[in-house]
């Protein structure tokens, strides 16, 4: 047996040193001239590197992404990309141009169809599709980036970064990279002599570049109240009366759809009339939804921690610092990793919508020919077995699920859907498209957003199904069919069994809840237009141009 050479214990540090030397030899200091960014990227990124490209469904390091895509595939190739969201055309360009060939991510959104095509052509290898928390977790385990390309609002001369209200994923990415021998490059919107606050210290940041234009932010969480329908108002009334009130849900997360926007806008009216102010919806893990403004102004809301910010909400947030997390400078500090943690462990309820649900309650937003991923919904929309602290809502749900002697509680995971989507596409189906997608993509698992066994309630225009109270798979199936309306699977219900479930309060109709559907009018909405939201905010909310009609 040969004597082994002594192991070198600082290869990462040495590699980092060589990269920085290459950059220095090209004359680069900490501040990179915008027209030389490609030279820098080609100097510090090596073939085979794991590169984290920051971008979420809000903030995007768009300039660095485009610049990386413009690098020479001769110099940079076989990159393994790790990123929260694959949203920009340049993200996919990286693979089409041969710079990168492997991807671990959470969500693909608008690029879902191009991504699916690349997978089928075997030009991209998908490691896994994660939830945000899983991906962040793996940054600290086996997917630590060699190079992180991030976006910040401002940098000072030393390289300290100010992230502004859209902190989002940056702290998690930078921490994982900077402390494991990686290189951190930040695009900034402006250079300032004095930052409003320091969000990332300069010695965690290697290079900054002033982007030609501010990083793109999508106003993804702005829902125009004008588009909320009467049916959504009806479902919101049912959810408030049949779930929020009954369980006394105080800590929660909402999805981004119009269904939950309707609930937010019914809090100051319908929920207030039911005497629920102070009893529900006091603490939130939520982006700053403009539709939450009336509830905040009405005194319903005590605290909101945010994943990211929302376009136009900055001044309002700053002026409501009792409610939002803000820095000494007055502006908001968001943090996706912490807010996701709050959504997973500190919320009693998640309520959101989906595109398809099967008879086991599994739901998916995947459609054929598109890989969309998960984002954070599965973190929020799952019952965490690691939770130990109790709350009335959690205990009540636990007793419903496991009996009076339950040794644990249960998170409320509510799916709220109209039985048909646009163009009469049924939401309730015998088999999710996700299974076909799994086959066509050769994936190990079907892309199920929320597992059926995590779902506690389903709200449709026909009623509420309480799956916690079901005692057999057959009961669950009939409870789901029993609120699936006139979809084919709904019409295939066992009517007698559904009536039995109704007698036991497992299926509840609007009339069982004392709700007259004819009272479900838009007049109940605290705001019926974006302009109403501006009025509620006292003029502090400045909606983006495309949401205005004035």
């Amino acid at each position, binding site marked *: 047996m040969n004597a082994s050479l002594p192991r070198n214990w600082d290869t990462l540090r040495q590699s980092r040193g060589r990269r920085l030397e290459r950059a220095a030899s090209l004359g680069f200091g900490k501040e990179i001239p915008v027209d030389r960014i490609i030279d820098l990227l080609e100097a510090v990124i090596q073939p085979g590197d794991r590169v984290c490209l920051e971008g979420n469904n809000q903030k995007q390091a768009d300039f660095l992404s485009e610049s990386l895509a413009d690098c020479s595939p001769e110099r940079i190739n076989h990159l393994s990309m790790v990123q929260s969201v694959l949203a920009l055309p340049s993200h996919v360009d990286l693979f089409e141009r041969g710079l990168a060939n492997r991807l671990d991510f959470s969500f693909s959104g608008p690029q879902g169809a191009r991504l699916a095509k690349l997978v089928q052509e075997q030009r991209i290898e998908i490691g896994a599709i994660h939830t945000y928390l899983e991906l962040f977790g793996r940054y600290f385990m086996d997917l630590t980036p060699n190079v992180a390309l991030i976006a910040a609002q401002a940098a000072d001369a030393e390289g300290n970064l100010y992230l502004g209200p859209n902190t989002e994923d940056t702290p998690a990415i930078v921490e994982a990279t900077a402390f494991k021998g990686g290189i951190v490059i930040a695009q900034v919107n402006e250079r300032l002599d004095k930052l409003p606050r320091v969000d990332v210290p300069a010695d965690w940041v290697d290079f900054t570049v002033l982007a030609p234009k501010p990083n793109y932010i999508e106003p993804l969480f702005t829902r125009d109240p*004008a588009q909320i329908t009467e049916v959504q108002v009806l479902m919101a009334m049912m959810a408030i009366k049949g779930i929020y009130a009954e369980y006394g849900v105080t800590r929660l997360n909402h999805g981004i759809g119009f269904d939950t926007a309707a609930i937010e806008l019914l809090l100051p009216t319908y929920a*207030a009339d039911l005497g629920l102010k102070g009893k529900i919806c006091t603490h939130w893990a939520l982006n700053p939804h403009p539709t939450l403004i009336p509830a905040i102004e009405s005194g319903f809301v005590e605290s909101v921690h945010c994943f990211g910010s929302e376009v136009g909400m900055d001044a309002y947030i700053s002026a409501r610092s009792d409610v939002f997390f803000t820095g000494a400078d007055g502006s908001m500090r968001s943090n996706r990793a912490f807010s996701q943690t709050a959504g997973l462990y500190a919320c009693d309820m998640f309520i959101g919508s989906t595109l398809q649900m099967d008879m086991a309650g599994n739901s998916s937003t995947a459609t054929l020919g598109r890989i969309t991923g998960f984002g954070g919904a599965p973190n929020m929309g799952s019952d965490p077995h690691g939770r130990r602290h109790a709350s009335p809502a959690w205990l009540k749900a636990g007793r419903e699920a496991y009996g009076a002697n339950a040794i644990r509680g249960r998170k409320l995971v509510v799916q709220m859907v109209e039985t048909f989507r646009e163009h009469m596409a049924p939401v309730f189906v015998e088999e999710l498209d996700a299974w076909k997608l799994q086959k066509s993509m050769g994936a190990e698992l079907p892309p199920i957003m929320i597992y059926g066994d995590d779902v506690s309630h389903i709200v449709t225009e026909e009623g509420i199904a309480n799956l916690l109270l079901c005692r057999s798979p057959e009961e669950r199936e009939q409870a789901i069919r029993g609120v699936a309306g006139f979809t084919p699977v709904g019409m295939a219900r066992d009517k007698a069994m559904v009536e039995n479930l109704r007698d036991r309060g497992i299926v509840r109709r609007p009339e069982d809840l004392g709700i007259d559907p004819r009272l479900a009018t838009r007049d109940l909405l605290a705001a019926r*237009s974006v302009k109403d939201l501006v009025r*509620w905010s006292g003029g502090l909310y400045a909606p983006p*141009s495309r*949401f205005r*009609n*004035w």
Partner: protein
Amino acid sequence: MIASLAARHSWFEATARARLAGLLDPGSFSEILPPAESNPSPHLALLDLPGAFDDGVVVCYGQLGKRPIFAIAQEGQFMGGAVGEIHGAKIVGMLRRAAQEKPAAVLFLIDSGGVRLHEANAGLIAISEIMRAVLDARAAGVPVIALVGGSCGAFGGMGIVAKLCSAIVISEEGRLALSGPEVIETVAGVEEFDSKDRALVWRVTGGKHRYLMGDCAMLVEDDIAAFRSGATEFLAGWSEPVPSVAHLRAGQQTLENRLAAYASYRDGLQVWAALGVAEPESVPLLDRDALVALKEGLPT
């Protein structure tokens, strides 16, 4: 909650029938050719499209402040309020009837993109007939008041019709123009007119801009009650002028002057600055009362 928000019944959101119900004196609404007595457009059926019983317009008589009036209300939610054969003929009938019976006014609740393309020729000719009929009613001494604040605004031929009326009462949400921003963007490019930049669309075509420039007589809140009181107030102070050369000469001069002054402008901000507004960028955020006060304080 904020009381003023709860009490508001948005004109922008309401259906044509809901607008009429709130606009006219309670109980005075009486429809001519109501849905039960009419048939949907056969031309739409030929194109395999369902029609509406009233073909997207309600014509009626009723009262406003106890004075007899006629009203015409287009339904913007049905085919964009666009004018087809039946729709147009109902409007023409009501206007001609007004010229004969001389009610105190015709209230014309315009909410329309113009010609219904599915009945393009019928719609264009009907709009021409509406134009003549509006002028005939006015020549007979009957004021025709356009109320513009619906989701479709007053575009295309209906934009011309609106400007042929005695006056236009508009809300901030209302829009008044000829070609829609989408059409201009499609033909001339997004650089010419970005139709998704809604703030820009409103600075070019919206109620505040039209009011500041004098193209609309009154600016009201997006509230059915505000339209009612606006129309009432306007009628109280109005007598329909006899058509005359002098009147049109004055109009000609105004239009020529402003073309000479503003022809190169492309944004309401430029026009408002030229009108003497000190902080034009603040205009879109002003509420209705503040804007009316601003206009009244402008140099004339």
